[in-house]
Each structure stands twice: as C-alpha cells, then as structure tokens.
C-alpha cells in the first residue's frame, strides 16, 4: 500500500508540474466555452428571418412596412381566428409565429411553432406592442385606455426541452469519453516510456509490478480529477458571477415596466436569457446526473486505464501499442456511433443493453440519465461496472507482471492468452 502511495504521489507531482498540464488546465475552460458558444454565435448570425402571421382587419397596418432584419410580417385578413389557426398549422414554410387577437379572451395570442429564443420572443412582443395594439384597442376595446395583455404559447416547447436533455447527456458522455481516452492513453504511454528509457528495470527491482501499475493508474486518476475539479470550479465561479449579476435583476420589475426596461436595457435582455437558461436546468435531475457522472467517470477510467496499463506492459514502443489500442477502445467508440440512437430513444432495448455493458456503460448511461433513469437501474449498471473493474485489475495485473517482465520482447496475442497457463 505504501509503495502504491509513493508511486501515486510521484506520478501526480510529476504530471501536475508539467507545463503542458498547467496550460491545458488553464485553457480547458476557455476552449470548452468556445466549443459551446461558437456554434450558438454562428447560428445567431444567420440571415434567416422569422415569419410572423399577423391577423389584422387593416391590411396596411399589418403589411410589410414593419418588416425588419429579424421579422417578416404576413398580413392575414381573414376574420375567423380558428380558420387562420388551422391554415397556420398546416403551412410548413414561411409560418413561424401566428399573432392574433382573441375576442373571447380579450388578449393578444402569439403561437410559436418554431421555438423562438427568449430574446426573439421579447423582441417580437415589443414589436407587436408598437405596431398592433393601437389598432386592436381602436377596433375592439375603444372603452379601454390601456393595451391588452399578450400571451405567448410555444408549440415547440416540448422539443426544446428534449434538446436540453440530449445536450446534457451528450455533454457528459463527451467529457467522460475524452477523459477516459486521454488519460487512459497517458497510463499506457507512461509505462511504455519507462520501458523505453529503462527506468522500469530500476523500478521493478524495488516495487511489485502490481503496486507500480496501481500507483500509476491512481496517480494519473488524481491528475485527471485535479484538472476536472479545477474546470468545474471555474464553471461554478462563472455561473455564480452570472447569477449574481442577472439572477435577481428582474424581480424588482413588474409585468408592465419589465417590458419598458427590456426595450431600453441590454443588461435586462441578458438577465432574461440567463433566467430562462437557469430555469431550464432546474428541470434536469441535476443531483443524479452529478453523482452518476462522477461514479461512471471514475469507474470507467479505472477500467479502461487498467486495460491500457496491460497494453503498455505488453509493448516496447508506442508504435506497437496501436495493434492493442484499437480493440480496447472500440466499444467506447462504438457507443458514440450509437449516441444518436440512444438519445433519440433512451428506453429502447439497445440503449438499455449498452448502458449495462461495462465497456460502454460509462458513456451510454450518461446519455440516458438526463431523460430519467430509475436509481435501481443506475445502481445495477454501476455494480456491473465496478465488478468488471475488479476483475479487469486482477487480469491486467497478471498480464502486466508477465508483459513488463518480458524484458526486451514485445508480447503477442498468443503470449497474452497463455498468461493464465504459465503464471
């Protein structure tokens, strides 16, 4: 145990002092935020405008004069709101939002088929306020001096919610895949390096091969957790900064003056966006995701790292590792090929099977969890994964002992299978 601790400590200190580690740790949050926000930014920067159907008795008023960079207005002269709705729903092109006045409800209704962002919703509401309400007041509510209220109904709400679940699952799965692969390879590379520079001979005359292997695996796990912990703290810090700035910014406004504020203040817009973003996360099983992420991440890494360690022990140089690396990483990679399928149908038999199979479960289960997976199912999958890890470490240590001691001679697949017989 003491030897494992000494190797672990040395491995950890050696790696966290490397410039590449410091650089990657500092740049990681920036890079990942870029990866997250560049596509969003690019998608915002399109010329695609939103087509709004505006039911009005006055064709001039609802006409193209109000069309701008964001919206194209299509005047609808039909008086029957139901007919307009049916037509709007049937139309697949150039029909994103329908705006009409409900005489019965005495309010303006906005039906959103596209799923506008919060900013777009508020822009549209303001625009409607400007161009539409006077006419409505004049036509239907001459006795009232104030504009009627507006109700926004998103028909695409369910889709948006599913997107968030899919994104969360994919995000967790990508992170797990990346860390397992990157740090697993580090374990293998570390062992091959020490074989190449001959330190292994000095090490093995002092340390049990198993202790050395475990020290290396756990040392690199500690490095990995340090990096990940730092990133998490950075994200939490950024999140708390946003929350501090925008979280309660809107509570001081009531429904009337908030619109006025949103019209003039960019900060208020951002606050609105943040509140919607933060609120959408409340719908996720965050606690379950967090705990499962940590467990699957750690067990997945340990399982793959011990396999990678065995590969490192069997080969004498990095080029030789290729023939063994592919078969090991194939299941993890294959899970990604199935990721689209898993997030589109998280409860299918295939998805369930992949989330139980230990070589695929760290990624597959994380893809399923945001959609809601029962705790006993998660515990079952973790149990399978943990048991496989124990078995793998036992097997890997035998392969490791044999492989690493086969000094100057790389092991073949045949040697690998003869391990049990000879040990």
């Amino acid at each position: 145990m003491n030897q494992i601790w000494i190797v672990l400590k040395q491995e950890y200190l050696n790696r966290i002092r490397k410039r590449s580690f410091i650089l990657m740790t500092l740049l990681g949050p920036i890079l990942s935020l870029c990866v997250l926000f560049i596509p969003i930014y690019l998608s915002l920067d399109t010329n695609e405008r939103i087509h709004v159907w505006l039911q009005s008795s006055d064709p001039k008023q609802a006409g193209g004069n109000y069309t701008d960079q964001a919206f194209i207005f299509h005047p609808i002269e039909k008086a029957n709101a139901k007919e307009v709705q049916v037509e709007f729903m049937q139309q697949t092109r150039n029909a994103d939002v329908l705006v009409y006045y409900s005489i019965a409800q005495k309010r303006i209704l906005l039906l959103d088929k596209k799923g506008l962002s919060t900013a777009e919703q508020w822009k549209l509401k303001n625009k409607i306020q400007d161009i539409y309400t006077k006419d409505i007041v004049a036509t239907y509510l001459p006795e009232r001096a104030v504009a009627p209220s507006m109700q926004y109904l998103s028909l695409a709400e369910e889709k948006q919610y599913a997107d968030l679940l899919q994104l969360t699952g994919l995000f967790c799965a990508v992170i797990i895949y990346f860390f397992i692969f990157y740090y697993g390879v580090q374990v293998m590379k570390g062992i091959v390096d020490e074989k190449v520079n001959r330190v292994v001979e000095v090490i093995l005359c002092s340390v049990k091969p198993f202790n050395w292997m475990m020290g290396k695996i756990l040392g690199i796990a500690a490095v990995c957790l340090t990096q990940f912990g730092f990133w998490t703290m950075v994200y939490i810090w950024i999140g708390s900064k946003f929350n501090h700035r925008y979280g309660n910014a809107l509570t001081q406004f009531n429904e009337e003056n908030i619109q006025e504020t949103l019209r003039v203040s960019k900060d208020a817009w951002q606050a609105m966006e943040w509140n919607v973003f933060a609120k959408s996360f409340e719908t996720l099983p965050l606690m379950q995701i967090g705990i499962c992420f940590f467990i699957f991440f750690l067990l997945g890494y340990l399982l793959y790292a011990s396999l990678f360690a065995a590969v490192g022990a069997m080969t004498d140089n990095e080029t030789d590792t290729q023939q063994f690396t592919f078969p090991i990483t194939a299941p993890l990679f294959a899970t990604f090929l199935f990721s689209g399928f898993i997030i589109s149908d998280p409860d299918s038999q295939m998805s369930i099977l992949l989330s139980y199979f230990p070589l695929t479960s760290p990624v597959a289960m994380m893809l399923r969890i945001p959609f809601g997976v029962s705790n006993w199912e998660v515990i079952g999958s973790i149990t399978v994964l943990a048991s496989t890890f124990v078995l793998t470490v036992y097997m890997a240590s035998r392969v490791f002992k044999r492989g690493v001691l086969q000094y100057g001679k790389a092991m073949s697949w045949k040697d690998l299978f003869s391990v049990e017989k000879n040990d």
Partner: protein
Amino acid sequence: MSEILRVEHVTKTFGAYRAIDDVSLSLKKNSILGLLGPNGAGKTTLLRLITQIVLPDSGKIFFNGEPLKETHRTKMGYLPEERGLYRKMRVQEQLIYFAQLRGLSAKEAKQQSADWLKRLEIDHLSNQVLETLSKGQQQKIQFISAVVHQPELLILDEPFSGFDPANAEIIKKEILSLHQSGATIIYSTHRMDTVEDVCTELMMINKSKVVLQGEPHLIRKQFDQGYVRLIYSGRLPEQVSTGIVEQKMLTDNKIVYLLSSSIATKELLTLLIAQGTVHSFEEHLPSMQEIFLNIVNEHML
C-alpha cells in the same frame, strides 16, 4: 559465515533462446562475487533473476535462507547495465523517490541521498535536472540510487562502464567501503584488474552455463602450470631453453622469459646464475585475464 544467497539449478529461456542453463551458486554474507563472462553469456539474466526482474523457468533462489519473495526486493540494491533514470527529474528528487520505494521514510531518504551526493562530491548537482548532467555524473547518480537504502545485497552490472579511470577508482573505493560496512556484493564486469583486486569469490559464465567458480587465488592456483617468469641477460642454458613458453625483448640485453621447467627451483637458479645475470625470477600464476581468455577460446573451439 552464514549464506545470504543460494541459487539452485536455475534455468531461464526467452523463446527458443536459453539464457541461463542449470546455474547454481552459493554466496556467503559479506563476500564480493565477481561475475565474469563474454558478452551474451547470461550474466545480466542471472542478475535479473536474483533481483526478480525476470522469473526463472525452473530452479529455486533463496535469500537469507528463505525462498525469494517480493519483500526481498527492498533488501537488495541493483545497478543495471543499461542505466535508467528519469531524465526530466531533479537529481535529489529521484534519489529520494527510489529510496522511498525501497523502504526508507521520506526523512531518511532525504538524509541518505544528501549524504551520498556529498560522499561522491556531487552535492552541488542535487537540484539539477538529470539530463543536464554529464554521462559520468549521471552514472554516479545511478550508483547512488542503487546504494542509497543501504541494501544487504548489492548487485552491480558493469559498475565501471562509463567512468573515466579517476571516477572508476572512486566507485571501486566505495564498493570496498560498502563491503567493509557489511554489505554483500555481486558485480559483473569485463575489467579483470578490478576482479583480482576486489573479489573474494569468482564465477565465470559462458554460453549460459557456469564454467568456473571459487576464490580468485584458488582458481589461479588451479590453473597454475608451474611456469617461471624470468628476466635474464645472457645465453640460457640448453636444458632450460627447451622449456621456453614465451619470450620478449625488454632492453638491448634483457629478455623476459616464461619458462616451463621440470628442474627444481634451486638447481634452475644455479644453472642460470652460472651462465648469465638473473634480474628477476618469480613463480608465474596465470592472470584472470589469461584464464578467462583460455576458457572462452576453449569453448569456442
């Protein structure tokens, strides 16, 4: 004196190649065993078997009377032939690391490594990164890493390779000093001069088998052919000249002879003095170099 190491009929093969074939060895505590043999004879494999870097196919190895086990690793120090240290790590840091792996506490490891750096007069290098040091300095660090934990059994594979004569002498002195403080030492070498000076036991391996084993002076005695080494001026008596094995001109009138003679020493000297001048006359025991070459050549024929 009790036995520290016993090797019984050990065999090790790598694929089709038999690196060690039925080797046996017994080593008393506080002795120095010199392991000789041409390249590829199996010396390094034998040392790796003792240090548990490779495991034997058959045969047994005992350390202090117990079958060799994992915990014995920390009681041994090993200097491999192909040196291996962390190139990017600082000198003292890696010495402390190796010492801790071999059972010293962090404090002891720090103290011992500092003492050894001072002892080999390289304490000013303790904070340097290894790859910035010269080859000789790196060799010294490697030597310290093998002895820093004060092992009972020190195994040195070609300890003098890479050292200039002055530094080789320093290392030789340190080996003797470790021996005096109670350590048992096994070392393999090609340097016959050090073997004769340093070793209390010798073992020669050729083609994976032990071909010679024993105390150096007894081995030399075993190979004694009764030759006499003579430096002489004048004409050799006829009954002596028939036994010339080798002769070499030393100066204009002095010749060095290696003689094989059945004549008793006293009579021989009388004969020689009567006919010329005897500058030197001594019993000639074969050097380890000669024995080594003889055996290797014999096996090659």
